[in-house]
């Protein structure tokens, strides 16, 4: 299923907001909140893309991204990094690690939707 999105985010209110806008646009949204088990969730859900927070409990989003890119099965998987750490060095690091898009919090809902639409169709 191409329009399946895995949202890895520990803040429940933010997850709820993103889920709402994406579902309203026609995407299927799975939600996950723990860093340590995020990779397993990706393997299990086979999403069309991943929206990934950086400051996650137990494991950093950057670590997860690196593992995703290192793995042949997920090397091409579109990943949108969504983080409250908005400094240039964080953006640089994310892009170097192979992030497809980088959006800082707080974000405009429209920006998130645009980015997701460019990565996968609903």
């Amino acid at each position, binding site marked *: 299923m191409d329009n399946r999105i895995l949202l890895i985010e520990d803040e429940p209110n933010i997850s709820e907001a993103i889920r709402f806008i994406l579902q309203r646009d026609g995407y299927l949204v799975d939600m996950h909140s723990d860093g340590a088990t995020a990779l397993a969730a990706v393997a299990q859900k086979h999403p069309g893309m991943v929206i990934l927070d950086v400051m996650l409990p137990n494991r950093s989003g950057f670590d997860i991204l690196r593992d995703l890119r290192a793995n042949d099965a997920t090397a091409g998987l579109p990943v949108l990094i969504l983080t409250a750490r908005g400094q240039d060095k964080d953006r640089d690091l994310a892009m170097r690690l192979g992030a497809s898009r980088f959006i800082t919090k*707080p974000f405009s809902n429209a920006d998130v939707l645009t980015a997701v639409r460019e990565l996968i169709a609903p």
Partner: protein
Amino acid sequence: MVPFNLLVLVCLLYVLLLFLIAFAAAKRAETGQLGWLRSPWVYTLSLSIYCTAWTFYGAVGYAARSGLEYVTIYLGPTLVMVGWWWFLRKLVRVGRTQRVTSIADLISSRYGKSNLLGVIVTLMAVIGTTPYIALQLKSVTLSFAVFASNQPEGGTMPDLNATALWVATGLALFTVLFGTRNLDANERHHGVVTAIALEAIVKLAALLAVGVFVVWGLAEGPADMLARIDASPVSGWDLRGGRWVTLIFLSAVAFISLPRMFQVLVVENSDERHLATASWAFPLYLFLISLFVVPIAVTGLAVLPAGTNPDLFVLTLPLSQGAEGLAMLAFLGGFSSATSMVIVAAIALSTMVSNHIVMPVWLSLRGSRASMSGDVRGVVLQARRLSIGAILLLGYLYFRFSGGGEALAAIGLISFAGVAQVLPALVGGLFWRGATRNGAAAGLLLGFAVWAYTMFIPSFGESALMSAELLTEGPFAIGWLRPHALFGIGGLDPLVHAVFWSMTLNTIAFVTGSLLSFPGPMERLQGAQFVNVFDHTGAARGWSGGAAEAEDLLVMSQRILGSKEAQALFQAEARSQGRGGYLPDVTPDFIERLERELTGSVGAATAHAMLGQIVGGSSVSVQDLMAVADETAQMLEYSNRLEAKSRELARTARQLRDANEKLTELSVQKDAFLSQISHELRTPMTSIRAFSEILLQDGAMSAAKQKDYAGIIHDETIRLTRLLDDLLDLSVLEAGQVQLNIQSANLRDILDRALVATQSGERATGLRIFRDVASEDIELQTDTDRLCQVFINLISNAQKYCDAASPELRIRARSSGDHLEVDLSDNGCGIPEKSQDMIFEKFSRLSDEARAGGAGLGLAICREIMLNLGGRVEYLPGQGGAAFRVIVPFAPGPAAAQGPSGAS
């Protein structure tokens, strides 16, 4: 008859002539036209102040009393001049190269510039010369009296004491005028010396005239005179060997060491070559002046009535024969002898007194400012003028109180013996490098004491100073301490006795003291300068061989390496050469070693140059080298100071580095903190923005959903507000700027308030609280609001994070010493050990705490509050669940009461 007033007039005219000559000579010298002033003849004639009134009048008296013994007084200087010219040359050379100002200065300078020795010699010289000055006053006074007693009326017999006082005053005036024109005693007194040369001619001419008058006028030529001498009792007296030797010795020593002789011989010497002329011309002068002594004595004894004072034959013989002009000349001769001696002696002594006694005292009284202020010159000159007055006053007083009945020669001999005490220190200083300051001081003091005891004090006669019993029985009836028979050796002539014991003990003390003491560097250097004066200033001779060179190397090395190190180095080298002491043979190996050592201190080039100059015998003087060594010592001192500065700088740099590291660390912490803050602020704002956009754009949403999302926005706003509040609170607490509101309270009331706050409204959870209310009844002085805030934070942490199925919190309080402890422990899984260290840090939120809405500042705030209250909060590990202990003092310390630094 010569009218007395005419005599006074002639006297005054003569003095006026002396004034004019002295003045003219001084003027010539000032304008640089030295010319004949520097003639060796002037020098030779000035030496004639050796021949004082004692010689002029006293020699005849001496001959009349003791026969030929008077010759000894002339033999001594003659022997010195003819036989010891090399000694005089050395003395003059040392005096000139060292710019010596007096004999006291010479001794002081030789022994390491010791002012102690200067003072000793000065006092000895003053005391020793006083009788001599008295002698001159006495002779002048007596000669006046001779003329006065021949007055026809006789009624105008002048008061002897008044005459002496007038003479003394006049001499003081003359000496002050011409003796204290220059500050530098080493600058020659050309005016005075010229006047003295004139007086030398006058007195020689006078005595020769009287002699010719006697031989060719009264007798009938030399042959008749010799016959008369043979018939006279003068020729009959025995020659007493002991006295002869003693007298020749004394007069020889006195010729060198009398302050006035030293003045003309060494200080006033302008050219060393003058000594060559004087070495034959001065004995000739002495020969001439003594030539007619015996004829005059013999004739006087024969012609004049018995009981006439033989000391005045020179005057009374012409007078008795009606040769008044000749008598007048003789009087002027005697007057010249007396005045020239007094003037030069006063100059010499005043220089010594001002340089060695007045100036040191003045400088020490004025402290360091003295050398800076401009009136030093005035003080010196004033001191010299006053000294001249004081010295002449002393002479006058001695004249008044010594009884006045002594023969002239006896008084002169007392002086001779007194100043002779300088001899061992002087000769030893010039010829023996082992002579030391301590030895010189010991010898001088002992010799002088013995002289005073056996000769000087008894010369006052039976006075308050020394009673008749003491002289005959000894002090406290101790026989062997009798002044005229020390150690039980009686029967000697008092003079021989005194000279023998004083000189013997003096020499023994000097040699023993020198052998037992170790000279300081300055002493050794000066010793080398004095003993080797000809070597050191000789152009090409330089330094070569022997212990002297090793010692010079040692002196040099001490200046550079420090006294102990250098001595140790030399001693080690001497030992390795199989020698004792500290002076090794100067082998090339040793010089190389020494150069290496010196290189460490002054650098290779300088060390090589310095050693090369010493060893290679270049013409550089020791003083030049010492100047370099002194500079090196200064440079070492500067270098030490620089090192200290450098250490200080290094310390400052280290402090700066530390501070910088701290700042860097703080900066890193600040970045991390800002990053955290940013994250913590962005998170709720993200929710707020996202949901408000949803609400704004989605009109078709159900009312329930709308309310739901508005609730989220509301909650996140509150979370944001609380975060900002906590941040501000923490910032105030950390800066120590919190204003504490200390008041009396009961712990139970505070806990009650905390529980009400945590269990009301939306915060209420299922946490059950167990308290021991009885244990909480503790009174304390604290900021109750702040303490309550700590409890609220801890309780709400338990509410948020206690993961037990039925969460419980136990609160226990107890007193301990000056503080109380409150434990709050829940029954959850507690905090993992690895996290326990960091839970009190900002944003140290553990993994899953975010869900509970905390920003991770609560415990950090607790910690800061407790520090402000003078207590602390700590995690108690191993209690099952999470357990915290709050420790609060019953009353805050002074710091806490004020609020930490600068509560405003």
